[in-house]
Structures are given as C-alpha cells and as structure tokens.
C-alpha cells in the first residue's frame, strides 16, 4: 500500500536518505527507530508528500511521487493522518476547532463533524479541554490534540512522529493502546519513536534507520533479542 523503491533524498549539502526500499502493508504496525537526525521525520514526510525524493519513487495508495499532480496532494493527505513532532496546531482556534478543521476541509456536515470530534476527543481524553486555546495546553495535551486531529479523518494509515516524546509513561502507554486499537480497526500505523519501552510493550515490525539508510529490519519475534 505504501512502497519505497530505492528512494534517495539529497540536498545541496548532503544526503538525507538513500537506498530506501520499504513496503508497508495494509493494516500493518511499523516502528521507525534510529538516532536523532537519522532521517525518520524525512522518511515520514515522503509519505505525505511534503517532500519529494530526488531519486526513486514513493507510492502511497494509488498515488506515485513521480506522477502525482499538485492538486491531488490534498486528497492523498486526507487518507493519511499525521501526528507532527512539533504538534502544528492552529494557534488561532481552540481544540475543538483544530480537530473539526480536518473534517471541514473535506466538506463534512456540521452535525457529523460534531459527533466525530467529540468521539475522538473522548478517545484521547481531552473532552474537558475542548474549548481551550492551544497555547494554554501542556506539551502532552497538545500532543493528544494532534493525535485526535490525525484520527478524526479515519485515515488508512496514521503516521506518528514521536507521539509520546512529551508524554509521561502512563500517558505514553495510553497513546500506544489507542494506536493499537486503531490499528486493530484496520488502520495501518507507522510510528517514529525513541521510546523502546513501548516497543517492548507492544512489539511490532521495526525499521532501524542509520545515517539515512535502513540499517536493519527487525520482525516482532526477533525484537526481544535486540533490546
């Protein structure tokens, strides 16, 4: 469903990713690990086509990075939920409107929006703060708003860039459980993380990046041997 064919991303100065060949199947759960600066965020950006490979090809659903037109990108992004490392909340509207926005974009009816936003807010445990502005939230709360926004669209894949970086261990476990539940509902999950505790807790296929290359792919059975 998502395929990388020998992908490389280069800037004038250096190579950010190279020789990336990777397949994420429907409904799969994949961890992306690697040192800081290894290229995890860069790889995720290729999937939601915020960045294009300088070499190779990325295929997401029925779109290919080499042939997608500019006006098709929004429609791709509606099928890919993204949780950003730096939250990227709209600072000019409250929590409810931030999440509702992802539905307004696709022209949902107001009533439908309301019920879906409230349901997803309950999922992430922020129902009581739905009228807060983002700046009044703690780091962990912002993170959960971001997750709620990514989920509300019912994407076929959820990309989560260190969704637990700002959360305490309990909350992290809560988020992981949430992601697993979503995954069990058929949504694929690709999560970049530094939190190996979580991987130990819920082992899945894990891709290890190093210096812009895929160093290793570890299947869930082999994981305990690694950590």
């Amino acid at each position, binding site marked *: 469903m998502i395929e990388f064919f020998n992908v490389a991303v280069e800037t004038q100065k250096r190579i950010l990713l190279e020789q990336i060949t990777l397949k994420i199947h429907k409904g799969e759960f994949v961890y992306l690990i690697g040192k800081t600066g290894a290229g995890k965020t860069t790889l995720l950006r290729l999937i*939601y086509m*915020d960045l294009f490979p300088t070499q190779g090809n990325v295929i997401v659903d029925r779109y290919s990075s080499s042939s997608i037109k*500019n*006006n098709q*990108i*929004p*429609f*791709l*992004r*509606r099928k890919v939920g*993204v949780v*950003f490392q730096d939250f*990227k*909340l*709209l*600072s*000019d*509207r409250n929590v409810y409107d931030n999440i509702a*926005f*992802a539905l*307004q*974009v*696709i*022209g949902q009816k107001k009533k439908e929006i309301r019920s879906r936003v409230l349901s997803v807010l309950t999922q992430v445990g922020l129902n009581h703060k739905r009228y807060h502005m983002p700046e009044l939230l703690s780091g962990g709360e912002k993170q959960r708003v971001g997750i709620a*926004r990514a989920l509300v*669209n019912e994407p076929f894949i959820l990309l989560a860039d260190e969704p637990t970086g700002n959360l305490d261990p309990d909350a992290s476990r809560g988020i992981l459980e949430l992601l697993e539940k979503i995954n069990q509902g058929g949504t694929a999950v690709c999560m970049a993380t530094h939190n190996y505790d979580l991987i130990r807790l819920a082992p899945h296929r894990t891709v290890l990046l190093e210096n812009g290359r895929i160093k290793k792919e570890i299947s869930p059975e082999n994981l305990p041997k690694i950590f």
Partner: protein
Amino acid sequence: MRIFFFLKEGIVGLKRARLSAIIAITSFCVALTLIGIFSVAAINLKDTLFQFYREIEIETFLDPGLTPNQINNLQQQIQAFPEISRVIYVSREQALQEFQKVFGENLQAVLKENPLPASFRIVLGAGYSQPQYVEKVAARLNQLTGIQEVLYQKEIIQFLQKYLKLGISIGGIIAIFLLIIITVLVFNTIRLTIHARRNIIQIMKLVGATNQFIKGPFIYEGILQGLIGGILSVFLLWIIHYTVRYFVFAELAMENYIFGGLIALGILLGLIGSYLSVNKYLD
C-alpha cells in the same frame, strides 16, 4: 454550503486575527477616504468651472448703418446657432447709458454724438459654455455681415485654457498615482496580514485542505475588510464633508455615487488583494 462556510470562516478569521483585521480595515478606511476626498475635490472643481463658464457672454457690435429690420434678421440668424441659448439686443442708447455708469462721464455731452455701436449680448447654451465653443462661435459670428466686432472675456478664457490643461494633466497624473499608490499600500497591508498567518496556511495544507479551500476564507476576509473599510470611509467622508460645509465652504457639492463607489472599490481591492496575496503562499 461552501460559500456559507467560507463566509463564516472569513468572519471568524477577522475575530481570530483581530490586530491584523483592525489594521487592514483602518488601512482600507483611510485609503478609501483619501480617494473620496479627491473625488469630492474633483467634482467641486468641475462644478466651479462649469458654473463660471455658464456666465460667459459674447458681445457683438453691430455695423452702425443697419436698419431695425436687418438687426431683427441678424438676431434670428444668431438665435439659430445651436450653441446659443439667448441673444439680447443692446441699442446704442442703452450702451451709452452703461458707458456713463462705468466711466462716470457723459460722452454725448462731450462729443455731441454717441460714438458707441449697438450690440448683441449672447449667452451660450448649457452644454456649450466651454472655451473651445466660445472661440468657435465667436469666429462664426465674426463672419456674419452686419457684425463689426466680436468681444468676449478673452482674458479669463485664455487664462483658464492655459492653466486648465496643466491643471487637468497634473490632476490626472496625481489621480493615477494616487490610485496606484493606495492600491500598493492596501495590497501590502493585506499581504502582511496573511504573511503573519503563513504557518496557518502551511498547516491547512498538511491536513489536506485544497488550495481552493485555503483561499476561500482569506478571500472572504479580504472582501469583508474592504466592505467594512469602505463603509467606515463613507462615514468618515460624510463627516469631513459636513464639517467642511459647516466651517469652510458652505457650497461644497457631493455626489451620492462617490459613497457607492468607495464601498465597491473597497470590496474590489479586498477581493483582488487577498486573492493575489494568498496565492503567493500556495504553489
């Protein structure tokens, strides 16, 4: 459906980015007020000139030997000119009386004879009281037999003609620059209000908003800013107009279409400005 959403988002956007909105609206307001002041100045200048031209008279002195019949004929001939509205006959006696009034001297007593010729005082029609017509009519009158001399307020007409061209040129240049400059300033303001929210556009893109969808609220916001700025400028202009009438110049004219024009211009500038500006942040 969508229109309503955009409109609502546009209104909400004004509230969300209050500072930007206030600044943009004041910019619109003052810019349009300036244009309004200029328009009022222009129509008043035009009115003044036309009023002056309406008062222009041509005086034609008649040959001394004309019979009353010939004079009558001539008057009818002149009356038939399309440019001329009224022809008044001034007899030699009337001319003498007027001369005496002006120069305070009894010419006839000194000279034994009235040296002054009879004349027609000619008033041009409303549409024709402009220098070019005055000169044309004067030239044609000069060619009529029985007419000795054609006099008109040459000095003032020449004065106006000489400086009118200059005035209209300078006025026109200023008006063009005014419009360009106001447009640039208002567009800059809109551009900056959108620039201050560039990260919001970025995020909208990331959650899958189409370019159309992103533009919508910004454009409606721009239109609303223009509309509100336009309405405020109408108030402001009305107050200025009223104040000037009251304290400075009671005859200051005003046309209602200026008010409508300002609001329309505000909406137009808001529409185009926000459309162009938001486009810069979409590929």
